[in-house]
């Protein structure tokens, strides 16, 4: 078994709200989770159970209070994202770790096409090449062409969400954190995003994502980690996954070695179950 790409141990986030008399709010506590190289782990649970906070601690938008989130970089070095210095985190964000927030926060007065092409151009390809790739992505995500030169702030929630997804995918990160990237989309646009995520994963991107729709979890994920009241209570293959071919996971943390081989079951287990399982991006 190869080492996980991301290994979370005892991760805890408490907010101390000084403006409310130092009130302490626990977002989540004692989370242990391994995300295997090339895997796709879904995060499920009710609102307020700590899923988004967990993603933000990994991306370092939040500072974890305790614990570690050890990430194995492209250079083979392990970095604890909970403690690494700011510069190291910025470097990883630029080159290796992507994040799709629930809501788009794009720079004002930048056309959608350049919002997406920007991070790619910063990564070293020319701006024109980056724009070409951005156009391909936007076509795939079915964003109407007449919007490409407009400012995303004027877009609907679903349109903004697709810009957000495209911006994260264009750099082909090694690890992609997704916070409900399909929540504002209708079925057809959801399908487009799901297909693109599957392709991106087949291209080598490891993913950890919050989804509310169990059907999407079923299509995309090898394992679903469920959070309740700030604790990770369960890690297992998605509901409906074929238990005959997939060894069942223990209910408790940490997540088992079986997750590392999750990809081999992808597609087959969910075949015909949902409309998203278009087999175009399959590798198996």
């Amino acid at each position, binding site marked *: 078994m190869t080492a996980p790409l991301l290994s979370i141990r005892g991760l805890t986030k408490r907010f101390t709200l000084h403006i409310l008399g130092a009130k302490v709010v626990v977002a989540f506590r004692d989370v242990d989770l391994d995300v295997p190289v090339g895997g796709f782990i879904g995060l499920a649970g009710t609102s307020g159970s700590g899923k988004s906070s967990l993603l933000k601690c990994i991306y*370092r*938008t939040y*500072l974890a209070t305790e614990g570690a989130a050890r990430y194995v970089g492209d*250079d083979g070095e392990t970095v604890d994202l909970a403690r690494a210095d700011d510069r190291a985190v*910025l470097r990883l964000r630029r080159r290796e770790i992507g994040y799709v927030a629930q809501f788009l926060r794009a*720079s004002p007065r930048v056309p959608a096409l350049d919002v997406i092409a920007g991070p790619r151009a910063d990564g070293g390809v020319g701006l024109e090449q980056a724009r070409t790739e951005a156009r391909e992505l936007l076509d795939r995500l079915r964003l109407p062409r007449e919007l490409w030169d407009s400012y995303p702030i004027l877009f609907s929630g679903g349109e903004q969400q697709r810009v957000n997804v495209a911006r994260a995918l264009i750099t082909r990160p090694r690890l992609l954190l997704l916070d409900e990237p399909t929540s504002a989309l209708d079925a057809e646009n959801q399908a487009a995003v799901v297909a693109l995520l599957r392709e991106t994963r087949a291209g080598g991107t490891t993913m950890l994502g919050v989804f509310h729709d169990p059907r999407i979890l079923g299509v995309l994920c090898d394992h679903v980690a469920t959070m309740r009241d700030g604790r990770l209570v369960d890690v297992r293959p998605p509901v409906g996954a074929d238990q005959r071919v997939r060894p069942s996971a223990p209910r408790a943390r940490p997540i088992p070695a079986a997750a590392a081989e999750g990809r081999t079951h992808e597609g087959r287990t969910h075949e015909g179950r949902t409309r998203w399982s278009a087999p175009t991006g399959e590798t198996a």
Partner: protein
Amino acid sequence: MVIERPLLRVRGLGKIHGPACGRCVELTGPEAGTNRCPMCGSVVACADVGFEVYRGETLGVVGESGSGKSTVLQCLYLDQQPTAGSAYLGTFRDGDGDLFRTGLAERRDLRGRLIGMVYQNPRDGLNLQISAGGNIAERLLAVRWRRVDRIRARASEYLEQTEVPLDRMDDLPARFSGGMQQRVQISKALASEPGLVLLDELTTGLDVSVQAGVLDLVRRLQRRSNVAMVVVSHDLGVIRLLAGRTMVMKHGRIVEAGLTDQVLEDPQHPYSQFLVSSVT
């Protein structure tokens, strides 16, 4: 792993106005809730300020008026002589020379060639009684540019980059709008191609639509060049837009430093929490 050397290293920077009794620093700051020394009445504009800036990055500094953020910039641009600390610039004497212990000629070189400064008030950065082009020429002449044709070419280049119409090059900035004065000031700061540019409240006092133009200009410059910037602002929107890392100052001290999104979404220090909750 590549160890990157910072462009600017600041250590223990302090500036005390007044007699300084020796206990000023310990008796002031965020915990004391004041920057006036109760023993001797000196004002501690800033103390124990330390940070690094790397090539190509923008560091934000936020805080209210009187927090010491402008003092830090003015010390770095050698407008003020600090009372404590040291600062090293990678492009100056191979990073070995303390900026605060320099002679006149070195100061001219630092201010004219190695560091650029954009003040809140264009009057502080520009001579309003000489033309826009003349302002840029003045900066280049100070660092021994001699050929008029080259000076003029460089001035046009930077005015064009900052979208100042070239037919206004020979006009006095006194007759320009605030936004255009600010753009001339930016072209002046950049014309000698310094590795480090300090920007002090560059949009404060401008109309919102004009602010947008100036901010977009700075963002384009960030993308196009490898220049490092320190952006001081009380406006968290400006910081969010421009800075990758941010420091929060209060009563002359750095109370928090981190990634900009972390400082804004998960501020740790009571004052940072207060600051963020005041606007969002």
